[in-house]
């Protein structure tokens, strides 16, 4: 046996006997082949939903925020719920590509590309909301500290919303650059395989003239590491800052120091759930079962158990602290969450986020694709409700009972939310048809070791 450093006990990360060429073939197939009918149907639906959402946005801008269900007491509801939900979803990609890279988790290689794509699209969807929820969208650029002629007008650096602006835009930029950097060698591979001149030209531009020289590879590796280093704190900072929108306020149910870690865990939790939702479908549709294996799913499920449990503990801590604080407003805020008019959203959140992920303690469930898929949907729903609970149930009954009221969504609220889901899937489907959905060149680095173990080749 040749001297090889791979541990014997590890499961192979790529199943079947694959050659380098086969990998290229498998991953380039969706790009080079024709779209099937299923794709067309799904794409059409997504595009229609996206257009509907755009229409609802246009209606909101044209008529006023009043077309949403908000009122004097509840100034944020679905808008910011959706924002936090999408930002949360956008956490998995960078976590997988950056933190797992630093931790040398090589299994991430099959999933990081699509997870990062998901991140980018989720952050785009997320960023729509803080912009769109403004009463005067047309002056949204005032949140930037731009030199101006309006006098000594400047942004307010005390405002967590301003921190959001920087956190989200930084995160988006770094994620995009990281994602794109990884894509360059793969685009070059696609370019080299293209027979159609126009496509070839496009991929030529996209691949920035990558030639695969040793120098380029060395620089590529360096940049990846630097970007991974940059992204890692961002994974933690973005949702920390988002949580500060609430944590720095004076509203009972918002004013909570536990929010930063709790939000970050929740974000990773929801991000992985969304990755699972997407990949379980994608591996089937694009015939990538050999690359995205049950092992991957199981590993991600383990992260879900961990983060889901952190979230569960956070929920219980909140309840304990509200009781222990002795602050009547705080106590009522949490009692009202669980037993007030929005009790159903609280218990939906509890069921979906705390109870269902615990099923992953059973190996049978966490290695079952169907069960995983269903639970991932539950988690997605639960995490949406978590934000709804935090935002709406805290606001609708705060200090003075005279202002207590209810929030009822309108069709525009619903339309915008569904619209962003449409936008997200439209982007993702386009991505799946035009971009290498798995990091080709990276994947090839783990082929040999996984191929040779645990069934040593016959020598």
């Amino acid at each position, binding site marked *: 046996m040749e001297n090889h450093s791979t541990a014997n006990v590890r499961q192979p990360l790529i199943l079947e006997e694959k050659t380098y060429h086969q990998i290229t073939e498998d991953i380039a197939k969706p790009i080079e082949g024709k779209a099937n009918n299923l794709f067309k149907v799904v794409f059409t639906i997504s595009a229609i939903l996206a257009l509907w959402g755009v229409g609802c946005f246009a209606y909101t801008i044209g008529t006023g*925020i009043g077309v949403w269900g908000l*009122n*004097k*007491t509840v100034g944020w509801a679905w808008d910011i719920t959706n924002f936090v939900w999408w930002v949360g979803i956008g956490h998995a990609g960078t976590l997988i590509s950056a933190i797992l890279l630093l931790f040398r988790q090589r299994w991430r290689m099959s999933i990081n590309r699509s997870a990062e794509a998901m991140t980018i699209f989720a952050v785009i969807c997320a960023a729509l909301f803080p912009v769109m929820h403004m009463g*005067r969208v047309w002056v949204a650029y005032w949140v930037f500290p731009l030199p101006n002629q309006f006098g000594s007008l400047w942004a307010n650096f*005390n405002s967590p919303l301003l921190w959001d602006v920087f956190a989200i835009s930084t995160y988006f930029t770094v994620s995009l650059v990281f994602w794109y950097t990884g894509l360059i060698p793969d685009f070059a591979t696609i370019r080299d395989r293209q027979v159609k001149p126009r496509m070839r030209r496009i991929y030529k531009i996209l691949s920035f003239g990558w030639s695969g020289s040793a120098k380029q590879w060395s620089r590529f590796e360096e940049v990846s590491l630097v970007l991974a280093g940059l992204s890692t704190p961002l994974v933690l900072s973005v949702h920390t800052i988002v949580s500060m929108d609430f944590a720095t306020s004076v*509203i009972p149910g918002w004013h909570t120091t536990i929010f930063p870690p709790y939000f970050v865990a929740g974000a990773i939790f929801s991000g992985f759930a969304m990755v699972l939702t997407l990949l379980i479908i994608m591996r089937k549709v694009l015939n990538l079962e050999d690359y995205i294996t049950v092992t991957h799913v199981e590993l991600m499920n383990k992260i879900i158990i961990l983060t889901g449990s952190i979230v569960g503990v956070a929920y219980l801590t909140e309840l304990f602290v509200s009781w222990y604080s002795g602050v009547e407003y705080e106590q009522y805020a949490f009692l009202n969450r669980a037993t007030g008019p929005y009790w159903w959203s609280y218990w939906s959140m509890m069921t979906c986020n705390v109870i269902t992920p615990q099923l992953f303690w059973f190996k049978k469930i966490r290695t079952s694709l169907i069960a995983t898929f269903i639970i991932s949907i539950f988690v997605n729903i639960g995490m949406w409700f978590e934000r709804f609970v935090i935002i709406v149930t805290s606001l609708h009954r705060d*200090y003075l009972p005279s202002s207590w009221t209810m929030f009822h969504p309108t069709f525009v609220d619903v339309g915008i939310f569904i619209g962003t889901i449409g936008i997200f899937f439209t982007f993702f489907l386009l991505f799946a048809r035009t971009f290498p959905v798995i990091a080709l060149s990276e994947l090839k680095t783990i082929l040999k070791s996984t191929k040779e173990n645990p069934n040593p080749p016959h020598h």
Partner: protein
Amino acid sequence: MSNTKKYWKGIEELKATPEFLQSKNNEFIEDLPVDEFLGNDSIVDTSTNRRDFLKFLGFSVTAASLAACETPVRKAIPYLNKPEEILPGVANFYASTYWDGNDYSGVIVKTREGRPIFIEGNDLCPISNGGSHARIGASVLSLYDSSRYKAPQISGKESDWKSLDSAVSGKLNDIAAGSGAIRILTSTIISPSQKAAVAEFTTKYPTAQVVTYDAISYNAISIANNASFGKAVIPTYDFSKAEVVLGISCDFLANWLSPIEHARQLSSTRKVNVEDKKMSRHLQIESNLSVTGANADKRVVLKPSQIGSAVVSLYNKLTGSSLSTKSLDKKDAIISEIASELNKNKGKALVVCGINDSAIQQVINAINMHLGAYGNSIFLDTPDFTKQGNDAAVMGLVSEMNAGKVDALFIHGVNPVYTLPNGEAFKAALSKVDLSLSFSDRPDETTAVCKYVAPDNHYLESWSDANPRKGVLALGQPTINPLFSTRQSIESLLIWSGNTTNAHDYIAKYWELNFYPSFATLGGFATFWNKSLHDGVVLNNAQIAQDLGTIKITTIPVTEVSAPIADLNSAAALISAASNAKGTEVFVYQKTGIGNGNQANNPWLQELPDPISKVTWDNYVLMNPSEMEDKGFNTINGQVQEADIIDVTIGSNKLTLPVLAQPGLAKGVIGIAVGYGRENVGKTANGIGANAFKFTQFINGTFQSETSGATLSGSVGKYHLAATQTHHTMMGRQIVKEATLEEYKKDNKAGNEDLLLATNLKTIGKDGKAAPKELNLWESFENKNHFWNMSIDLNACFGCGACVVSCTSENNVPVVGKDEVRRSREMHWLRIDRYYSSDMNEEVAEKEGVGAIDKFLKMEIPSANDNVEVVFQPVMCQHCNHAPCETVCPVLATTHSLEGLNQMTYNRCIGTRYCANNCPYKVRRFNWFRYNENAQFDFNMNDDLGKMVLNPDVTVRSRGVMEKCSMCVQRIQAGKLVAKKNSERPKDGAIKTACQKSCPTNAISFGDFNDMNSQVRKTWNNERKYQLLEEVGVQPSVFYLTKIRNKTSKEA
């Protein structure tokens, strides 16, 4: 290699056929049908030739470029000759008089560039004393009501004054020639000159007689006074002279008789302070929970049918007599307690009763006589002239009309088709009248059936005088030219009498002849007139206290009047007979905003939440919550569940209305507000609610608001009432702090104990407990120059809502309509929170072992007991000195001023609403839509006329920005400029916010905290002072004084 390849264009070229060779040299291989085309005549004949085409092109381009131009230019036309007294940008104030047939007040009208924009009380007026009322504050908007008549009407069509005058004069002459009966049905006339004009008219037409009708009648009081004292007058009251006040079904703080005056009088005995810990005791017996009852120290709930018995029983217990009366069962004991309390305070007690029944009023007279109230707090010798209606005469007129005996009917200031219990009968009778004419300045139910309408001016366009009570004489002046082709009724009457003097000259002449002689010592008439006009009221009380001689006008002989009640025994017998109620009892009442409905088309009043129910834009059936539960009706008018609609039937009258739970309402009784169910009045009021005047009745010679025998249906539907407050209890929180007088006597800080937060800071005290103010995250602001603060005395706030209207008027607060209020999107900068007490609290929960969940659920439910307590708390922006809104705005659109104000910069606001979310008081209001020039919000800001009411000093906010109370920063600025011109500091009290100015009880004080002698600084040191939600640490600039209730320890 040279290129020798040859490419053919086609197979023809290769073959080189002769045809190909021939056609090769042609430009087009195939023949073009040029000749055929050009030879077609029809093409030449088409109407669009080249020139036309160019014309069309030119037109289209021009049209397109015109359409692309900027928004239409609005021209501001400068004065050619600037009126001397008008300085653009500077407000002018004129004293005038408000009188609408029901409410009287001396007012100051603020005008800007010739437009009246704000009404406030006249400080010199002894009745309003500078205070205002919601209906009076809002009256300025009624001026700019686009549904007003723009010209006289003949048979429902617009006409002109010449045709109307000739038609009316002609008819009058015919009728006079035939000795036909002419009747003038009018609201109470308090104007001496108008009375003179009526007298001229009746002289010209001797068959003319006057019938005086008050939609809200007080006739029983004058009948009773006539029987008791031989004086058919309405007395004036002084509540400040009474130490114990008992109100019986009498909303004297918000609606009854002279509410602004009463509120001020009573509040003067309710403002306790450390030096003199005395306050009056206010008892109330009623069926409804009125604004007045809500402020009482002790409330007794009785059915309307029991009130009479209670009055008689009270008399018996006070005097030891034994008039026959029905037992009140358990409530008898409470009546005895009240009697003994009143007896103990003989000479210092006052009983007022709002029931328009002469028998009851006669017993009340006897009670007050016994208590020695006459001459002390009731004054028969300075009677109130504002209610002179004669109910029996009105009913007599209807039967006279029905009999076809009336040839001409002039209707002035009243709307009988709507307000009479038998309005339909009046309508039918009116069709038998040959000449029917209304002076109404706007369409109503009566003008719809009148042949002629001679529209009167609005009071802000009119000259008027008034003698509202003996000893008070007032003048009213126009503050704007008539907006439409309208004419003062006094002028119309004079013209038809053959006198063409205009109103001003007529009034001036009248004053010169009748009033000036008493004031001749003051100088010439011009001096007297100018001074009177400037002041609005004539102040020299000694002289006008003499009877100025009311003009006798020929009134209709009353035929149907019941014989005067001989003595108390027969009164008691009448009361006893009337107390046999069957079925559900009904009372109708006035809401503070809409009143009798004459200003129903005023959107400010429609959107003003009822002080008690907090419902806007509707009337409804009030019912006790426990009774509603028995009937299966929804008792929670909230955002979750809609109210049930029921049919209420009495005889042939049926009203279909939603039913609302009203804690503190008698069981077996329902209440419905009048003023709704208007028809033909304009877009704002049409079709809202139902007309409850149908449930009033004419009984014992007077119109009465109480009736019985109603049958209620089950729920026939669901309706979403638009309420600004849907939760009604304080949930055990320290929001309105209160104590009893006894506790306060023992401890200056009763109910207002220092709030200390536990900390682990060893530097603060020995136990680490700190006041919230000591725990700061932020640097304190230095307010070196001014530091504007406001204090609100919760003992003086009766919740009437005058401030809310005043704020709306001053600050251009948009009206959003019923649907938006349903969505909790009202825009009021100032709201009055109203909380009921709950049967559940911490102690009860502990005693009964109720768990936390149940405890809070039960806390949400207002007490179903009779003794439910009510508190009012005005809440506006608290101008926090560590404002949570300021830190969260990403663009610094809300900032702190150097004078301690929390400022909102609309232009900078991008509308994230973060500030509103982070406001613990929820006082910030967001412009969800564009509320001006938007057909979706078709109120005053959507039409050019209605926009004239806008205050030019205050920006009209655009869509997408946040707004809130600015503490009337424009008034502060104006006051500072005045002071600066005089080279002095603004004097305390010189700057008044709009809410403060309108408050009839002076519950609000505002001023500079840095001025050691200011009222607000002194109030700060009052031990009753507390800040709302002090524990949040936002350090508000607004603070409250605890509510003190004068309850005995037994009641507490």
